[in-house]
């Protein structure tokens, strides 16, 4: 308080000493200075009051903050199972009804692998999957998917995926090794149970026998750009259909690029392009007719095969809030080119084959627990061989028929861990039209996995 008097004195001194002073001005100035002093005192008093108030206030809030307990220290219990990986299981069952005999199912112009057929009629247990995943150490993440399915009365165990992957290698690079779903198409990288329909698109069924996996390495690189751009490639052993045979070095390779982004908050999209090449060694065609009794020998292909894929995904949700309502559009196109030789018993023919096709599917989730969707598949093929008989033997004789299929699906989702699905297909994979009905449940128990876009 005392400090103000000298301050005022100094101010007055400064004013008096520099300004020429007249008597009546002097009194004016004095009054003015007195007023200033009053102002100062008032303000300082206010400030002091405020500081005092803030201090008490602050103390109150600080007390409250102190009451917020910090997270409890982790209890150290000596038990090894605390490091168990995340485990989840996906179970599903299906009831199917077809107007044609599913054993006669074929896709004109395509040769189907063993698993590519339809699920059996009536009740059947679909694929049961067990998924294990965890960070292995500071560098690596690991994941394995073991699938169990019935095949001709026997339960088969299949390692669908088993890979290790770097955790933030550096600068957007990720390296993966092991068996993994090949990044050849949008749906190919997703698990069967994450698909929007109960069965694979016809082109997936026709080219890969549902899905293509790679045993090998995958390197991907996310560019440091504002726009999402990812490029990468894989090398594999080349034995997965439509590859075939044992290769000592690199049996197949693939290069891919993806980009995508948002349009406002309501729209997201992704575009992908990939190219795969392999040199199949004795790829067998499932067809094959016995010549004059005895065991039928399959037609085999030797040569070069490449596949190009273009995929597009668009998602919409009002305000980007997917929980309430959303719409997804997926479309993919594949083009396969075979160049080589067909062989059957003692016959040999040069062969040039093209198989192509795609699908468009739209899924509308109109409430948190319900969604419905439509899908259209179309395929085409052109086969040329120096000996037409071999084409016939390989079941590749399409003669201009274009397979098509229309599908409709309705899903009820009691929670994010369960789904009941009804699907109906009008399938014209071959000249015999087929109506297919599928009722299916799919559930997931255990760890809550993250789903990619």
């Amino acid at each position, binding site marked *: 308080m005392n400090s103000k008097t000298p301050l005022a004195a100094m101010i007055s001194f400064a004013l008096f000493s520099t300004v020429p002073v007249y008597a009546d001005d002097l009194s004016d100035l004095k009054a003015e200075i007195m007023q200033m002093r009053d102002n100062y005192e008032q303000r300082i008093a206010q400030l002091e009051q405020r500081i005092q108030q803030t201090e008490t*206030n602050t103390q109150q809030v600080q007390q409250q903050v102190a009451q*917020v*307990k910090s997270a409890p220290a982790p209890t150290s219990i000596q038990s090894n199972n605390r490091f168990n990986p995340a485990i989840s299981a996906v179970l599903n069952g299906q009831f199917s009804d077809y107007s044609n005999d599913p054993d006669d199912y074929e896709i004109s112009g395509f040769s189907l692998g063993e698993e590519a057929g339809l699920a059996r009629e009536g009740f059947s247990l679909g694929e049961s999957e067990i998924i294990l995943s965890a960070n292995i150490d500071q560098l690596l993440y690991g994941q394995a998917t073991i699938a169990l399915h019935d095949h001709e009365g026997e339960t088969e165990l299949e390692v669908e995926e088993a890979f290790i992957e770097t955790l*933030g290698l550096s600068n957007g690079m*990720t390296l993966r090794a092991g068996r993994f779903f090949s990044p050849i198409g949008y749906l190919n990288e997703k698990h069967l149970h994450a698909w929007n329909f109960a069965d694979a698109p016809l082109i997936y069924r026709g080219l890969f026998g549902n899905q293509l996996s790679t045993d090998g390495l995958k390197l991907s690189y*996310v560019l440091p750009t504002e726009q999402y751009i990812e490029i990468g490639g894989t090398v594999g052993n080349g034995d997965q259909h439509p590859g075939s045979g044992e290769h000592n070095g690199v049996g197949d390779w693939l290069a891919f690029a993806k980009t995508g982004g948002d349009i406002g908050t309501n729209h*997201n999209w992704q575009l992908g392009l990939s190219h795969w090449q392999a040199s199949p060694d004795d790829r067998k065609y499932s067809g094959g007719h016995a010549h004059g009794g005895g065991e039928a020998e399959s037609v085999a292909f030797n040569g070069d095969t490449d596949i190009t894929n273009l995929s597009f995904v668009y998602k919409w949700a009002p305000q980007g809030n997917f929980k*309430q309502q959303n719409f997804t559009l997926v479309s993919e196109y594949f083009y396969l080119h075979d160049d080589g030789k067909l062989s059957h018993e003692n016959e040999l023919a040069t062969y040039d084959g093209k198989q192509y096709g795609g699908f468009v599917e739209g899924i509308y989730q109109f409430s948190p627990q319900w969604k419905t969707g439509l899908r259209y598949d179309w395929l085409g093929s052109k086969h040329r061989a120096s000996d037409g008989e071999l084409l016939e033997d390989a079941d590749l004789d399409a003669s201009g028929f274009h397979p098509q299929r229309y599908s409709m699906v309705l899903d009820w989702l009691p929670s994010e861990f369960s789904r009941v699905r009804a699907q109906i297909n009008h399938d014209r994979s071959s000249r015999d039209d087929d109506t297919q009905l599928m009722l299916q449940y799919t559930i997931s128990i255990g760890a809550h996995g993250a789903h990619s876009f």
Partner: protein
Amino acid sequence: MKQLFMGLLLFFISMAVQAEINIFACEPEWEALSQELGGDKVTTYSATTGLQDPHYIQARPSLIAKSRRADLLVCTGAELETGWLPLLQRKSGNRAIQNGAPGAFMATDYVQLTGIPSQLDRSQGHIHAAGNPHIQTSPIMLLTVAKALSERLQQLDQNNQAYYQQRWTDFEQRWQAATLRWQQQAESLKGLPIVIQHNNWDYLIDWLGLEKVATLEAKPGVPPTVNDLNNIVKQLKLTPAKVVIHAAYQSPRASRWLTEKTGIAKVALPFTIGGNTSSTDLFKLFDNTIELLLDKSK
């Protein structure tokens, strides 16, 4: 070709020169807090908006690109982002933001959560094993997180330590004063009987001393059935409530139904920044929340 090369070179150089901390916030409240504490030494991005359910976010391409360039993740943690964040961390190929790295900041690591389920069973709905993660509804919790976040910024960017320290002190003072003001304003709300739609208001209820009478979702995350709602109507006859509360990102259907049935007031609280047009920063978020509650409790 040469031009392209030069362009790329310049691009990378400009990226190296840009010294700001690039923050990827999972929710808008953490973006706002990062902005308060980091000022112009940080650039921020929020993966979600106030009108999106943070449990259900797509790990979409733009988020991969953003997380790849991030120096620091500021997220809620406690399994709120379990459906999408782990995927972004893996796909980003970004070492800085992996779990345990200084660039991964989880807000719920710094406060003790309530509502930890005694039994983990999914028949009880979408439960969070680590406890209720929606801590941003209490300014007290928020201040605790802010202190930890400021320390993290100072650790990551030691050249600007004094700057962050000064911003923290400034924020702390303003926030404490504001908290007190809100508490005074909300004095009359103490004991206000409310119905909530989803269990995401625990910390607000606790802070303001509200009285939770019922929850519309009998099981968290599962839309209430007609039966559940009828039970609540019955319950409200015995213990009446004044107002039913839901977050702006949630469907108002169940709350509206209850309002029509019982005549109690209904209010959509912003829940986070951007939940409504008034909630543009952290201070306004609580200003608006208190204002809406006071308005409806009359």
